[in-house]
């Protein structure tokens, strides 16, 4: 088999930085191979992929050294856009990879770009929609599709170019586990019709279910931290009680209560009303019922939506709490306490948000999809953060599709479907109940604690 991609001692650096993103990387991919590139976030996987479809170095004025050869020709010798017909890409964010309104227009845009004669475009679109099983979506408005459907459309847009190499830039990151598995099964079938080379980056190789021939680890995984041990919940004391919360037509009346220091996970299919329920709890939606206490802490999926000030310290102090310094200490925010809250890492942003809520005297915290798009290290950090706070008596209600996370963290599982609460369960009872799992589009956890190696504690 001949090499389609060959990297020799490649280093890459952004012009603003002193240090390279990666150094002296060697990689050969032969035709027809299916390879997945793994490594902790920040190791330069995406930058490497962008060197292969020529988005880099031009787009960031990056500095490359070493030899990058695509189809036996130096990458720099290709004209702009030339390589993209032979090497197509699907990106991770389903919401920002389209420029036209409908599926047909997006496919036509793609074919126009590579100068397919206008007379042939209709035929090519019809064919690719057949191959991908998306015939019914030809005239659909892309923004109205679900995340999984959008990723299929993005794949169809790559497929229609009839490329020799398909690059996948973490395409499952924003999909829930069931949808992700469906996408992989669909892609596997599609791949059988054409024998092209696939190069993917992803941190959830297990979701791919043996799709790849080879895994290439770009950098060793960071040694994971020790898991905080959970202390038993003090039964008896009710910290959150919701009575007959209803938002018509999305939510039927819902009542439940959580104990002090309890960690609960709220799960259910997309559109079942999870976000609405969170907003109702926080008093952002008017409901017929009542919530006790009145002031509940809320951490959105993008924690920066909450931020109002110019430093981490000010952010915690915004609500006027008096325990700011102690909280900064406890949440390990000391090194960044004077930094801009937008400029810190995602995990730190989340800690800032939680810290702000706690300083504000909101000991019950609801979190909207904090696990989405997080790699293993980030998930461990999140888990520790939540467990340590719960041990201190903070109560959590967390929306997530990730049942591995729920299994490791939660004492209680609230399942929601069509705006109705199916019940409040012990997680272990749900894992046994395939019917319940299917009805709420959930995957049973794949088992146990993933990382056990002892390391420095991280609260």
């Amino acid at each position, binding site marked *: 088999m001949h090499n389609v991609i060959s990297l020799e001692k490649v280093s890459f650096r952004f012009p603003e930085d002193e240090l390279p993103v990666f150094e002296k990387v060697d990689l050969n991919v032969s035709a027809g191979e299916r390879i997945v590139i793994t490594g902790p976030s920040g190791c330069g996987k995406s930058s490497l992929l*962008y060197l292969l*479809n020529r*988005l880099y170095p031009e*787009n960031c004025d990056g500095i490359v050294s070493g030899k990058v050869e695509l189809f036996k020709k130096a990458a720099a010798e290709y004209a*702009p*856009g030339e390589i*993209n*017909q032979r090497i*197509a*890409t699907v*990106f991770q*964010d389903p*919401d*920002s*990879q*389209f*420029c*036209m*309104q409908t599926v047909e*227009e997006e496919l*036509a*845009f*793609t*074919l*126009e*770009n*590579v*100068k397919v*004669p*206008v007379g042939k*475009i*209709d035929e090519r679109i019809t064919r690719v929609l057949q191959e991908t099983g998306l015939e019914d979506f030809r005239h659909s408005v*892309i*923004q109205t599709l679900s995340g999984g459907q959008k990723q299929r459309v*993005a794949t169809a*847009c*790559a497929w229609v*170019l009839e490329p020799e190499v398909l*690059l996948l830039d973490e395409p499952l990151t924003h999909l829930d586990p069931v949808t992700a598995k469906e996408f992989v099964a669909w892609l596997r079938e599609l791949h059988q019709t054409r024998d092209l080379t696939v190069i993917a980056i992803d941190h959830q190789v297990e979701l791919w279910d043996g799709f790849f021939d080879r895994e290439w680890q770009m950098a060793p995984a960071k040694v994971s931290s020790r898991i905080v041990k959970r202390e038993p919940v003090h039964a008896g004391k009710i910290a959150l009680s919701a009575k007959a919360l209803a938002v018509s037509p999305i939510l039927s009346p819902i009542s439940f209560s959580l104990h002090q220091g309890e960690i609960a996970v709220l799960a259910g299919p997309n559109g079942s009303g999870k976000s609405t329920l969170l*907003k109702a709890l*926080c*008093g*952002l939606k008017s409901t017929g019922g009542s919530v006790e206490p009145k002031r509940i802490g*809320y951490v*959105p999926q*993008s924690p*920066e*939506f*909450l*931020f*109002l000030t110019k430093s981490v310290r000010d952010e915690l102090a*915004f*609500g006027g709490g008096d325990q700011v310094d102690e909280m900064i200490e406890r949440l390990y925010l000391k090194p960044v306490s004077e930094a801009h809250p*937008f400029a810190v890492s995602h995990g730190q942003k989340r800690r800032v948000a939680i810290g*702000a809520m706690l300083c*504000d005297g909101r000991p019950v915290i609801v979190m909207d999809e904090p696990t989405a798009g997080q790699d293993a290290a980030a998930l461990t950090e999140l888990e520790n953060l939540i467990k340590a706070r719960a041990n201190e008596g903070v109560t959590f209600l967390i929306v997530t599709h990730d049942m591995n996370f729920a299994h490791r963290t939660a004492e209680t599982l609230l399942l929601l479907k069509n705006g109705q609460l199916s019940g409040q369960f012990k997680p272990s009872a749900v894992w046994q109940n395939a019917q319940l799992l299917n009805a709420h589009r959930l995957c049973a956890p794949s088992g146990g604690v993933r990382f056990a190696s002892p390391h420095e504690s991280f609260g």
Partner: protein
Amino acid sequence: MLHRMNPSVKFVFITVSMIAMAFFFNPWTPLVFFTGVIFMQIAFAKIAWKTWSLMMLPFLLGAIGYFWTTLVFGNEDSTIGTALSLSFRVLAFSSLSLLFVFTTKPVDFIMSLMQQLKLSPKIAYSILVGYQFLPVLKDEFFQIQQAQQLRGVEVPKPPVKRVLAMRHVLIPMLAGAVRKAERTAFAMEARGFTGEGKRDFYRKISVSRADAAGAVLFLILLIGSMAAGFLS
């Protein structure tokens, strides 16, 4: 028929008509023009008149404001006639604008600017990206506002303070927009878009006989309303 006109042709005629109107200070020219535009819409277009009226209402209010402003603050040559003229001009402009808005598909307009008026594809497709991001960004706007309300930020009533309070929402939105812009641009480039060179279009926006007919109509109306002004 107005629906079938080429968006760029319509755009050019509407702009020319408006510039022409700017030279008339008698009440009749804009009044005749306004009436004519409404008749054109009744005869040659399908309009949701209820929505039309709702959209026209603010302009009617604006026209009233114009009327008394000109009466009170007009210069020595101004008469009631001038005041009426300016108010009717507001109405004439607005009816023209609504004619455009109600008979033109937004995406077709940009495609037509690219195909007929040679707007650069880089700009045209970027505008289309912006357009399809609108619902997403609008949603984000309200989400951020809600999240910040939870932290005790009220939306103040006084307008000046409201402008200032907007900054809290704007920063996360703009920061997000930078990220979304880069991702989308990368996706477009990864599909071979360069923005350079000649481009042929799968869906062509054409210039047809409807445009000739529309052009004649606009000209008759324009000349007629000017004549009405001279005659009075």
